[in-house]
């Protein structure tokens, strides 16, 4: 696809929105646009259905563009949840919406795997980490129930064209520094509101795998961003049809530029209760840990499980520590079973949950007791996020999580390969 518009000087976010608006638009302008894909999760489904049926005449403009994912409490933990999920399932079938039911996996992972987020697309999700679709340079952003219901009904949404923060990753990445560490460093440098309402563009990412790009884009929202875009390169160019207008203009107008020297980075943790409270693991070595959780839309993919398995193979999880692993999708689980990763982790003492969000939001499958400490590969460590408000969650990379599971205290892995 090519575009006759003058896109000179525009950032990736401005390009995507301009092409869709069929006119050149720049930061600050308000646009109303057609959407390529809307994603609805179980936890807010009742609200979305109610608004569509009661307030919007039951209209669904493009049912084929709506994906419904049962993941936030899957399988159901109680009767309330089961009732909503049944309602959603019935609704999806009746209205011919794509349904990804219990066990298929976490919404963001599933949409990427299913090709329902593609370069240059506009994808709205009823979940804040919908920025993850930026990994394939889709304009992915999260919204609440009313906006999502309007998007499902009308096929459109309103957006303010964001300004763009450019992040340049330079230098050589040291062994043991994961995409997660880099993503957290970006959040630390920007702070939790440093990219509010903005697009983050991640440059210097040519060598990053799709999974690593997902980790970067996933955490964009933790700096307040509307969208986190990774320019198409590497494997993404081979796997997708990338529109020829979706390119980086070196003259684009960025509101802020952040240079990060990868060579200077080291493994980090987000110290509770704020995601942007990022500190070197080194400063917290030896902190006793009750539970290690490897999973979520941030770091529950095959490469993450490989890293964990490389550290744990032939060894045992520490006596006083639980290692909980929840693959991000059924695909990840199948791959981990067939390549032996699953067996290695099981033999090391890991316990596995159904692909889905698990305890990420403190709802089931591994919530924390008062006083417990968890090292988690997820993206939020807010007070009470994973259970008791008196539990503490440290966010870390899969390598740090696995090393911690092995020793029972916050640890750095001895030798780690980058994915």
């Amino acid at each position, binding site marked *: 696809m090519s575009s006759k518009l003058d896109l000179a000087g525009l950032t990736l976010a401005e390009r995507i929105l301009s092409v869709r608006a069929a006119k050149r638009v720049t930061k600050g302008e308000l646009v109303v646009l057609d959407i390529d894909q809307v994603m609805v999760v*179980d936890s807010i489904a009742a609200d979305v259905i109610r608004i569509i049926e009661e307030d*919007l005449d039951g209209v669904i403009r493009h049912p084929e563009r709506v994906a419904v994912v049962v993941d936030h409490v899957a399988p159901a933990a109680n009767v309330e*949840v089961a009732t909503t999920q049944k309602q959603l399932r019935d609704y999806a079938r009746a209205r011919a919406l794509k349904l990804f039911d219990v066990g298929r996996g976490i919404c963001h992972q599933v949409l990427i795997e299913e090709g329902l987020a593609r370069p240059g697309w506009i994808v709205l999700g009823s979940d804040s980490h919908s920025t993850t679709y930026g990994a394939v340079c889709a304009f992915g952003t*999260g919204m609440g129930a009313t906006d999502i219901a309007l998007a499902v009904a009308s096929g459109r949404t309103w957006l303010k064209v964001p300004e763009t923060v450019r992040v340049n990753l330079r230098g050589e990445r040291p062994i043991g520094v994961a995409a997660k560490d880099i993503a957290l460093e970006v959040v630390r440098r920007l702070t939790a509101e440093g990219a509010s309402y903005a697009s983050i563009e991640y440059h210097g990412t040519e060598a990053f795998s799709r999974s690593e790009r997902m980790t970067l884009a996933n955490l964009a929202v933790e700096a307040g961003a509307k969208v986190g875009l990774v320019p198409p390169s590497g494997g993404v160019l081979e796997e997708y049809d990338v529109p020829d207008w979706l390119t980086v203009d070196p003259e684009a107008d960025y509101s802020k530029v952040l240079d990060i020297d990868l060579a200077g980075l080291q493994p980090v943790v987000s110290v509770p209760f704020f995601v942007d409270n990022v500190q070197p693991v080194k400063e917290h070595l030896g902190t006793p840990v009750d539970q290690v959780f490897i999973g979520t839309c941030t770091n529950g993919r095959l490469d993450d499980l490989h890293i964990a398995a490389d550290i744990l193979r032939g060894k045992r999880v520490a006596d006083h520590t639980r290692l909980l692993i929840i693959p991000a999708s059924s695909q990840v689980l199948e791959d981990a079973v067939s390549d032996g990763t699953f067996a290695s982790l099981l033999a090391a003492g890991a316990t596995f949950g159904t692909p889905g969000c698990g305890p990420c*939001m403190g709802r089931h499958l591994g*919530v924390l007791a008062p006083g417990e400490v968890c090292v988690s590969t997820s993206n939020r460590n807010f*007070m009470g*996020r994973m259970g008791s408000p008196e539990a503490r969650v440290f966010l870390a990379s899969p390598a740090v999580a696995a090393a911690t599971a092995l020793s029972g205290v916050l640890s750095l892995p001895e030798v780690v390969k980058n994915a």
Partner: protein
Amino acid sequence: MARVWKFGDAVNTDDILPGKYAPFMVGEDKFQRYAFAHLQPEFAANVQPGDILIGGRNWGLGSSREYAPRALKKLGVAAIVAKSFARIHYRNLVNLGIPAFLSDTVPELLTDGDKVTYDFISGRIWRGDEEYKLPPPPEFLQAALAEGSILDYYRKHGRFPGES
């Protein structure tokens, strides 16, 4: 008179309504009882319809859960004044018709427990004989709010404000 409930910076959506107390988990009739369950446990039992909330920077960061502000609405919270709002949450507030005002000064001047009166149409709050002015919302939102809410606007016009 309305009570002011004052909070600090970076109040997140898990603070406003922890994920485990979503209507999805505990039922549509009960979830509002858990507003600020961790951060301010006495809030839900004591807030009165018409009370207002004051926040610092980045109010509502985190999840897109609209049921967090919906819990506040069910409890009768009349408005939120903060120094800045997180993006998704701000849209949710607007969509629910909860007045959300940006102000650097008002959050500094009011204190927790203050008794105030207000007129949010003209954007004013009074504490005793002191008057505080609030800035008007952006035009797009004014157009939506003039019809009630963004849903009302869309239903009436079949399009979004500003769309031809």
